[in-house]
């Protein structure tokens, strides 16, 4: 099934616009694409007429151009005939935004829709979904444009069974500086499912990290999904809901009850190198880190901090997240100390964490990070920055990023996220080094780089 028309349409028909109510989903979708995006959008309503001076076509076959992508937001009962019309007219793909199918028990209607599309090899997403958002290209979400929060264009693509989760994570992406390539809400995933998007995004040059929010798979679908993921070189992150059984699970020592749905889900995904986010905090941290670093690493973390307390909390968090903070060889410790400025040389701790103290200056962070970057026994450097210290300047983000560029050793940073520290943060993020607003988030970032090796 060819998914290109879904993601790279030049023309879009929006089916189901109202001539009188601009808050109708189809109107919101038409207006934003017509006003703001390069895709050529055509409104469709059997009554015809005009919508904001644009010609409304009675049906998709009346549009003078070939339509790549039809966005269908009508009553559910009308959808099968509309899809038939799309197929007969040679439309390339569709998103069925309309609800009213399997999710309310109308399996018959959904089955009819699927069988029509499958017979014609016609790709559609949904029903009961928001569709597709691609930065600077198109947006089929029926949410008024001024209400949405848009992350910058980037390399993370997100496929979500829930539209709400997807829109919400876009807000988090914006807050944390995670760049988005493609966002797809797949709703009931009646025809095109996670595994189809995985295959497409694995080959998509704009996508470097593939994220899924999954509620559940069909019979044996999980097996096919993890086997496909196993051969995908890009990092894959999954956030799963439904971890806890609805009722209390009886205590039992039988395999059938020990290997419950979530246990099997976790085991099968982990075994095949998929990174499982346990919550949305992990999810955004994982996205940010893996969009910078796609090469899997080991567990050894070097911590550079301006405060002993931050270092100690980071060590604790590393421990609970399966990371190790190895002690450093005395030769290396001496070398680190020899390279420190006089203000911190005598008071710094050079074990691991390396505490440069409140007297540390930019040069101390740079020289220490550089020394750790040359070590094969350190897999990732965690820099905990306190921008209020007098010796720390806003230049440090860009300077430490340059160390990464030179040595290729992954660096993850903690900087409190407030407006006045923004230049420091951007010094990291604009140069490819991820920054978290919390120590724990920084540890999550480092953890994700292991790619969930069991």
């Amino acid at each position: 099934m060819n998914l290109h028309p879904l993601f790279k349409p030049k023309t879009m028909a929006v089916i189901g616009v109202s001539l009188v109510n601009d808050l109708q989903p189809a109107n919101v979708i038409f207006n934003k694409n017509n006003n703001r995006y390069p895709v050529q959008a055509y409104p469709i309503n059997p009554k015809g007429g005009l919508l904001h001076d644009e010609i409304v076509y009675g049906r998709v076959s009346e549009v003078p151009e070939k339509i790549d992508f039809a966005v269908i937001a009508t009553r559910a009962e009308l959808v099968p005939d509309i899809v038939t019309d799309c197929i007969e007219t040679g439309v390339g793909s569709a998103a069925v935004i309309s609800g009213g199918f399997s999710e309310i028990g109308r399996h018959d209607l959904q089955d009819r829709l699927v069988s029509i599309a499958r017979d014609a090899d016609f790709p559609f997403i949904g029903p009961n979904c928001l569709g597709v958002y691609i930065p600077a290209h198109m947006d089929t979400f029926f949410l008024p444009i001024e209400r949405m929060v848009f992350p910058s264009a980037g390399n993370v693509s997100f496929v979500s069974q829930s539209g709400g989760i997807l829109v919400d994570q876009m807000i988090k992406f914006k807050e944390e500086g995670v760049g988005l390539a493609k966002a797809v809400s797949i709703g009931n995933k009646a025809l095109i499912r996670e595994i189809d998007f995985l295959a497409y995004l694995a080959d998509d040059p704009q996508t470097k990290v593939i994220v899924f929010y999954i509620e559940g798979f069909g019979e044996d679908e999980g097996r096919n999904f993890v086997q496909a993921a196993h051969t995908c070189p890009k990092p894959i992150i999954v956030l799963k809901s439904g971890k806890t059984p609805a009722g209390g699970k009886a205590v039992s020592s039988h395999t059938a009850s020990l290997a419950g749905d979530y246990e099997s889900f976790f085991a099968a995904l982990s075994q095949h190198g998929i990174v499982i986010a346990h919550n949305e905090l992990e999810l955004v941290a994982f996205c940010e880190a893996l969009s910078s670093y796609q090469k899997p690493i080991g567990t050894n973390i070097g911590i550079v901090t301006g405060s002993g307390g931050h270092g100690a909390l980071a060590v604790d968090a590393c421990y609970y997240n399966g990371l190790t903070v190895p002690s450093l060889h005395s030769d290396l410790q001496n070398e680190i100390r020899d390279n420190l400025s006089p203000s911190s040389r005598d008071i710094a701790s050079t074990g691991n964490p390396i505490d440069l103290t409140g007297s540390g200056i930019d040069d101390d962070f740079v020289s220490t990070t550089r020394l750790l970057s040359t070590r094969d026994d350190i897999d990732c450097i965690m820099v905990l920055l306190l921008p209020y210290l007098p010796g720390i300047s806003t230049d440090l983000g860009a300077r430490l990023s340059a160390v990464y560029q030179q040595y290729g050793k992954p660096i993850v940073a903690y900087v409190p996220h407030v407006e006045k520290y923004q230049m420091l943060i951007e010094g990291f993020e604009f140069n490819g080094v991820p920054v978290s607003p919390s120590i724990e988030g920084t540890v999550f970032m480092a953890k994700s780089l292991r790619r969930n090796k069991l």
Partner: protein
Amino acid sequence: MIDENFGDILSKSKAWGWILEPDAKQLMHTAGLTIPRFLCAKTTEEACDFAHTIGYPVVAKIVSPTVMHKSDVHGVEVGIDTDEKLMKAFDRFSTIEQFHGMLVEEMIHGIELIIGATIDYQFGPMILMGMGGTGVEIYGDVSLRMAPLVENDVESMVQGLKGRPLLEGYRGADSINFGELTRLLMCFSDLVMKLEVSIDSIDLNPVFCTSDSCTVADARIVLKNPDSHH
């Protein structure tokens, strides 16, 4: 070999939905797993003769299609060391509904593991290994993988157990034979892939591991319910 064996066992076990221990063990043996010497005795004479052959002490277990969980009816007696005790056990078991016989087998010692398989709706055959007894019941100390296993999976499954030091020889004890454990799990994984369409779950519990061998001391195979779509 397995296919033929299983076909016969399957057809006679269908009526009650699971495979009785003697047949399940025989199947494990055919698949290359180590099992204790045993006999499903129909009379006290058979039981005593076999006990003399393998030597006391022995284990006696109820074999009945109505007893899937033997401990529920106190259907296992271990450490039986005289004919008298063996006959007493036989007499008690023989009053249980649909008594098929009494399984007499050699006593096996070692570190207890539980090894099992389920057919997961989303992921198909899954293999589980856990620390036996309280390790599973109280601490939930298990590793789980999608089958078929590769040898690296076995190593990481061992790594994933909190009780791993016990297997490696804790406080001067001998390490278990990891080569045998790997062989067992790989054979078991092959078997599970072959039986996938017919079974719902398999429990090998306990499996006794020593520095020499890993022996399947009990085996139960629950068949797929033909009426369920799961």
